[in-house]
Each structure stands twice: as structure tokens, then as C-alpha cells.
């Protein structure tokens, strides 16, 4: 080993060790748990613990609530990722305009929700979304739209939580996009303008290729984030109404920590892990095709 290699290992070693202990090891242990019938009875007496092979997975696939959770989570991700990234991009583009004043103030104001406690903001949004007295319905009434029972109607609950989540998280990607936008070549932009390219064409052919890699990263992180949505439904609706906001992670939390069916819960964790891994691979493939990576 050369001296350089030794130094490299010295720097990477601690991080690798931490990853091994807090990431790889628990994942392996969860895999081991997922093929047992660990339940509250096993907590009482380990003699009650059995190896069940893939029975947890088979039972999971036959549980209607699990599929409900998968469908809800897919809906959250399918609507939420474009909503959140779109909002971040729009805000970043708007803040990037030369005519906008007090940029630092706007940046702080729009970033603030991201660093505020979920529980505190959820309480505020519960009031905003109140059917009778909420500001959201008050605003809708000016558009002639009837009051929406945001958190009580199983069809409105997912959009309601998406509104809250988007507002909560878009500030983070906005800051990332702002940084990426400042790296867009001004010469190229100027040249395109002189050539008569419209605003849309300049965005499509100059800005977008420049921020492509950042967009891809934001998409990967957002998909992973939305698939692991938990805190927002937990504090806003407790999974209701009629289990319309139960997400995969919420289901896992209930099974594992509330009822201590850790075998079943680990099976859920494994499936979610595989799903996120698969989606990330697909996204990277797409990124490679556009030469963003």
C-alpha cells in the first residue's frame, strides 16, 4: 500500500465504518427478521420465535391494507414529486430574475418552512384546512367553490397533505436550483437571445441542460423522500380518514412499533428498500441517456 493509499483509507475509514455499523448491519438484521414471525409473543419468550421463510411476504401481498398503502404512496409520489420539484424550479427561476429585489429575504422566507418543526406547521395547516373556519376554504369561496372537507373526505385528504408537504419541502430544492442557475453560462444565454431564441427556447436549450444533473439529483431524492412519507400523515390525519392517507412507512410503523410485529414490519422495509433501489436505478439510466451523469 502506498502512502497515498494509506492516507485515503485513513480518511475514508471512519465513514465506511459508520456506514457499515448503522446502515449495512441493520439492513442485514432486518433481512434476518423478515423471515421470522417475530411478534409480541416472541418478545415475551424467544421460544415462540419461528423461521417462516417467505411467509411474511406472502401474507403481506395478501393484506388489502398493504396494497392500499402502496397505492396511496404511489399517488403521493406521482403527484408530489412533480409538484414539489415544479414549485422549487419556479421559485428558483423567479428569484433568479434580475428584476427581483430583496432576494435574500425571499430566499429565507421560502426556505423557512423546511427548517420548521413538522408538528408545529401541521397544527397551523390543520387550522388553515379546517372545513368551517379555514383560510383555504375561505379563499376558495371567492372563486365560487364550495367548502371542501380537506382532512375528512377520503378523496381530498391526499391533495390536502400534498399541499402541506409541498409547501414544507420545496424551499430546499429551491436553494439547490438557485445555486445551479447561477452557474448557467451567461455568454450562451446572451448568444441565444441575440439569435432570437424565445424565453421558452432559452429555458429548454440553455438552462435545462445546464441544471440537468441537479434536476436528476433532486428527482432521485424527492422520489425516495415521498416513498418514505410518514411524519406528515402521522401528525395531520393519523392515517385517516378511512385509511386514505396510510403510507407504506406508516403501515410499517404501526405493524412494527405499535404492535411489535417486527417480522412483518421488516418484510415491509425490505420491499420498500427494493422499490427505492429499483426506481433509483431507472432514474440513473434515464440520466445517463441524457448525459447528465
Amino acid at each position, binding site marked *: 500500500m502506498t502512502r497515498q493509499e494509506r492516507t485515503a483509507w485513513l480518511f475514508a475509514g471512519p465513514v465506511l465504518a459508520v456506514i457499515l455499523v448503522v446502515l449495512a448491519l441493520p439492513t442485514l438484521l432486518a433481512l434476518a427478521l423478515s423471515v421470522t414471525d417475530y411478534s409480541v*409473543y416472541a418478545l415475551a419468550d424467544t421460544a415462540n420465535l419461528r423461521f417462516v421463510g417467505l411467509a411474511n411476504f406472502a401474507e403481506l401481498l395478501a393484506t388489502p391494507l398493504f396494497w392500499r398503502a402502496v397505492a396511496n404512496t404511489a399517488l403521493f409520489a406521482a403527484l408530489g414529486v412533480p409538484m414539489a420539484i415544479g414549485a422549487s424550479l419556479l421559485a428558483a427561476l423567479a428569484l433568479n430574475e434580475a428584476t427581483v429585489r430583496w432576494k435574500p429575504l425571499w430566499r429565507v422566507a421560502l426556505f423557512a418552512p423546511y427548517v420548521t418543526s413538522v408538528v408545529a406547521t401541521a397544527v397551523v395547516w390543520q387550522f388553515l384546512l379546517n372545513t368551517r373556519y379555514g383560510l383555504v376554504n375561505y379563499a376558495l369561496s371567492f372563486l365560487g367553490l364550495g367548502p371542501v372537507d380537506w382532512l375528512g373526505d377520503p378523496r381530498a385528504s391526499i391533495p390536502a397533505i400534498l399541499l402541506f408537504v409541498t409547501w414544507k419541502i420545496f424551499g430546499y430544492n429551491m436553494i439547490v436550483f438557485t445555486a445551479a442557475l447561477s452557474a448557467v453560462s451567461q455568454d450562451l444565454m446572451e448568444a441565444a437571445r441575440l439569435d432570437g431564441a424565445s424565453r421558452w427556447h432559452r429555458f429548454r436549450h440553455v438552462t435545462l441542460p445546464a441544471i440537468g444533473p441537479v434536476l436528476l439529483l433532486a428527482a432521485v431524492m424527492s422520489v425516495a423522500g415521498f416513498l418514505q412519507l410518514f411524519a406528515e400523515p402521522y401528525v395531520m390525519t393519523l392515517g385517516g380518514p378511512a385509511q386514505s392517507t396510510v403510507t407504506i412507512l406508516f403501515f410499517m410503523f404501526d405493524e412494527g412499533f405499535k404492535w411489535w410485529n417486527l417480522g412483518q414490519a421488516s418484510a415491509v422495509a425490505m420491499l420498500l428498500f427494493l422499490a427505492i433501489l429499483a426506481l433509483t436505478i431507472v432514474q440513473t439510466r434515464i440520466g445517463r441517456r441524457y448525459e447528465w451523469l
Partner: protein
Amino acid sequence: MERIAAPGITRRQLMAVLAGVGVAGCTPRREAGALRLWAMGYEGDYAPLLMPPFTQATGLAVEVQSLPWTAAHEKLLTAHASGALPDALMLPAGWVGEFAMVGALAPVADRALLDGLFPGTLAAGRYGGRDYAVPWSVAPQAQFFRQDLLAAAGYDRPAADWAGWRAMGRALKRRRPDEWVFLMPLNWWDTLVTFAAQTGDPMLRDRDTRGNFRSPGFTRALGFYKSLYDERLAPTMLSTELQDPFAAFAQGAFAIYPRSPAMLLDLRRRRAEIADDRWGVARMPGPDGPGPAGGISASLCVAARSPRPAAAWALVRYLTGAPAELHVQRLIGSLPARQAAWAAPQMQAPVLRPFLDQMQAPADQPNVVEWERIRIEVQLIAERLVRGDLTLSQATAAMDARVDRLLAKRRALLDRGAIA
């Protein structure tokens, strides 16, 4: 502040001090040698007020931690698994069997603690023939009603049978069509459990290994429950949507609020919102008059791994004594489990009469580990029924199917003889 500007202290030294303060702030603020007690809800919030006499008499300091009801079950189980349970803890009667089974609780050593208790409170604390909990307070469900609103509709008190109760609801709704009558959020199981208990059909069968929800009694109770929502007497609403149920009751958005005696605390604390002559208490209605009703009874237990069991039992003995239980009653309304306490003058208040009567007829709850979950999941199916996703027969069949699956493990263990 002058210190910071003082010469001789470099910025680096200041940072070191700040870092030290930060680390010190992160270490648990645990009083050395203090007994630890965990309790839920109002009991947890107000228990510290009970401690000074105990500390004075024994010299033992007590540190009370309050847990929210919604997260208590997972917190306690996780604490047991990681060996972090406190010395003494409060458990609702229905959870004692489960925590005794997982080995979290120490059996009651001193039989004298279990003397002179309300009959019927002891059974829930027994597991495998041994007692693990000392009943502390009893909180049967009753209905709080708006005297003024009922009077305007021609009632001086709520009707006592189901049909009459619903007819009264219709009369109230006719007078005030924009308001509601019954405050029973769709994710609270207590009212449905009460209705079911009143019919006399047990909710589980075959040695508590299968659901019994297709029984005529439960079907009737569920049908009655659903009709209250169908007729728009109760809103199809979750508790998460009702930011402040008490305020809704006080403002007249609801005329009837089925609740435990802990409501008495709210009514005292927030007297400015609703005057004393505007509300009353009555027993829950039954199919043909009042019958058994559900409720949450709190027991006190000692953790099996407590390093100081003698001190922990001393705390339990003090808290479950008549004077401390009467103090609890004055503070938060929950009623004493010890019969001797009931002779005290404060217990003769007329508002407590319905609760005392109700305690003679407690609801029979199956003593199985899965009961907490069964109650919640049955309520989830009831919610879908109320929302029109299922018919009544589909709902009861779904409840039986779901509960049979939840009890599969228990069936298998019973067949093997692994549990009693």
C-alpha cells in the same frame, strides 16, 4: 454579557465553553436517585402535584413523565424491549395482560394492596393466575349533555334507551339543522364498544380466539351506531379534524359528548366557556335503558426490572391509598378505585352519581394481548361502513375475518399449549 466582552477570553475559549454547555445540556436531566413514574394523559400531567406528601414522608424524590395516549403503547413496548422502563408505570386495565406476558411487570407482592377495591376492577390486572396491577382510578363512560339545548327541544335529560336517544337527536337536529348532536369522532372506539357491551353478546368467541362480530347483538349495535351518522346527527369526522372538542361542545356545535369523568377537569378549568348550569351528566343509553359501558381504568404497576422494587411499591401503595385517590379525583375527575374513598363528602356530589351507578355495571372486556389492536381495527371497519364503503353484513364479516387473522398467532400458541 459583560463576560464575553471581557479581555483575556479568546473566541476559541468561548467556543469551548459553549460546546461544554451544549454537551451538559444533552445529558439527561435525571435527579440522582429519584424514583421514576410514567403516566398517560391527565394522570401524567397532574401526578407531580401528588408527590410532595410522599417525598416528605419517605424522603424519596419522584420524577414523573407524562406520555400522550396516542403514542403510549409503542413507547412502553419499546422501552421494555430496550430495558428503559421506569420504576413504576400507569397502565390502562386492558394492557396489563400484554405487559405481564412480555415480562415487563412485577407481580403484586403485598396482597393487602388489593383489598377493599371496587369489585370488577381486579380481573383486568390478572394474568396467568397472578395479579400484576393495583387499580388506581376508574373512568367509566357517561354522556355529558347541554342542559340548555336539551331543554329547548323539550327534554330535561337525555333519553335512556337507544330509540329514544335517537328520537331526541332528531328533535335537536330539527331545531338547529346546522349543528350536530352527538360528538363521537369516527376514530374513537369507546362509544361503539359501549353500544356493543350493552347487547350482552361477547365480541370474541372460542376462548377468545375468534371474532364474534356477526352475532345478532353486535350487528344491532353497529346498525344503531351507523344510523346516527346516516341521519346526520353525528358528523363523519375524525378527532384530528376537531381541533378542540371541548370548545365545540361549549359553543353548542354538539349537544351530547360521551366521555370519561376527566371531562370534569375541563369543565372546571374552562368554566369561562360554559357555565355550570348549562351542562349535566347521565349514563349512556342502552337498547332498553342504561347497561354496561366501556371506559378506561388506570392501574399502577411496578416494572420487573426496577432496581428498587421496595421503593416503587411504596409509591404505588401511597398513590392507590384513599387520600391520594381522592386528591386525584379533585384534580382531574377520575374516580377512586378504593371503596373506602367513596364515603368521603366530595364523592357525594350529584355530578358523580351517574358514574357511581355506571361502575356497578362495567363492560366485560376480553383479556387478550391483541385486544387493543382489535378495538382499533374494528373501529376502522366501522368507519368504512359509516362512509358507505361497506354494507352492514359486509362490515361484520370483514371484522370477523380481520380479527380471526389478528388472533391466528394466539390460536396457534393456544393449540400448542404455549400460553394459557
